[in-house]
């Protein structure tokens, strides 16, 4: 029988939640790396026992951990992230230029083909790649060089490269997203890049239609149709049907089009999930009701999913990395909250139950579907 392994990064350690395919009875392991911020944990799609973890601390800096036995044991690997050449400067909050400084790894994206290849999205925003299982890291500096890096500026959470999507149909194509710069695409394995922000409109920047400067929160795609992208922006839920060449808004009837995560159903490329948040000033759900919204039409028309979720006095947030889907049928949807709950729906979002209620604030959720 299939089983699922949910990899949870929190403010104070990592947790691994496992269950069989019914997704009813859960085992909670952890904390791993207790006391450290775990921005992201993700397993290799080629070798599910190979898992990479970003472990960070304001005191001790960045550590990358690797497991080769499904998370039972861990080994620190390389943590030297040096920008290629002279790092240069980017826009600072006050409009001046500020030197690029490495802070932490927000996202680790293992290759679709080789468990030793893994990409790291970092703050200050840059993309790194390791081809030796995380021992050494090299910046793909064309992203900053070709994409007007000096015009990028930090969002409230820092200037982070938080989304990395690898195209399963075109192995040389990579999408990334940066707060607050926008979305970018490479068609040559990360050597050269172009901004892909046409159609985005952000009223909070001097030129609402600027080529870069948009606060993209998350992008998602369905592996069977990787030219279609869904985006949760700072405000607005957006869609592209041409690999990011142009975007149009699909927020439709959402109660708020502000939010952080966005995810696509494992078997239905037009079924999309978001978690509306009241505003950028109040990072909690509208009306104190925790609602996932699902569109079965690729956007525009959204339905609230509430069964099993708190519908009063709920003021948690769901961060950009904290939603994921499994590959079972029916598809399982998972998300974690800043209040420490991890919820699962084993029926594509119709009903929800908490897997665990009292973890530290959840930063990231990833799911592995295992044989």
């Amino acid at each position, binding site marked *: 029988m299939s089983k699922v392994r949910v990899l949870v990064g929190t403010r104070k350690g990592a947790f691994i939640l496992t269950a069989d395919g019914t997704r009813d009875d859960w085992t909670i392991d952890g904390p791993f790396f207790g*006391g*450290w911020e775990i921005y992201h944990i993700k397993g290799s799609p080629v070798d599910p026992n190979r898992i990479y973890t970003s472990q960070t*601390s*304001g*005191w*001790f*800096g*960045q*550590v990358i951990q690797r497991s080769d036995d499904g998370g039972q044991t861990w080994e*620190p690997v390389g*943590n*030297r992230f*040096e920008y290629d050449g002279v790092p240069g400067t980017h826009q600072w909050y006050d409009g001046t230029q500020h030197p690029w400084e490495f802070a932490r790894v927000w996202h680790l994206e293992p290759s679709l083909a080789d468990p030793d290849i893994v990409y790291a999205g970092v703050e200050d925003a840059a993309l790194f790649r390791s081809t030796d299982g995380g021992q050494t890291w090299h910046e793909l500096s064309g992203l900053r060089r070709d994409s007007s890096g000096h015009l990028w500026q930090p969002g409230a959470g820092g200037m982070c490269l938080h989304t990395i999507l690898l195209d399963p149909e075109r192995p040389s194509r990579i999408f990334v997203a940066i707060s607050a710069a926008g979305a970018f695409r490479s068609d040559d394995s990360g050597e050269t890049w172009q901004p892909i922000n046409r159609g985005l409109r952000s009223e909070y920047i001097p030129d609402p239609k600027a080529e870069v400067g948009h606060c993209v929160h998350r992008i998602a795609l369905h592996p069977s149709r990787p030219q279609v992208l869904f985006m949760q922006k700072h405000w607005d839920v957006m869609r592209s049907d041409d690999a990011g060449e142009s975007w149009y808004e699909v927020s439709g009837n959402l109660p708020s089009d502000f939010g952080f995560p966005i995810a696509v159903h494992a078997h239905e490329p037009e079924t999309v999930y978001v978690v509306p948040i009241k505003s950028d000033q109040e990072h909690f759900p509208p009306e104190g009701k925790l609602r996932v919204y699902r569109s079965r039409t690729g956007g525009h028309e959204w339905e609230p999913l509430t069964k099993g979720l708190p519908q009063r006095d709920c003021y948690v947030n769901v961060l950009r990395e904290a939603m994921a889907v499994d590959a079972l049928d029916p598809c399982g949807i998972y998300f974690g909250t800043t209040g420490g709950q991890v919820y699962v729906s084993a029926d594509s979002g119709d009903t929800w139950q908490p897997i665990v209620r009292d973890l530290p604030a959840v930063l990231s959720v990833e799911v592995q579907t295992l044989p």
Partner: protein
Amino acid sequence: MIRVVLPPHLRSMARVDGEVVLEVEGAVTLRSVLDALEAAHPVLRGTIRDQATQRRRPFLRFFACQQDLSHQPPDDRLPEAVAKGVEPLVILAAIAGG
């Protein structure tokens, strides 16, 4: 013989209990002690000082013999008591944040 006290998180990382004991060739300075510490425990590279600039991480401090040595130039000699192993070099995680 040089004695070094690590903060608890770094003891866990290095998988050591209690003090770390190191042999240091030549002058006993912050740089030579940290070089020896990182050579003995490579997992600590980058956690105490930046790997590129070699600068102390902002929220870590160095103490020995009742003195704050955090701002001492890295090639200055450490106190005689540290060099003789009478007193440890203490690497302390500052109380900052929550």
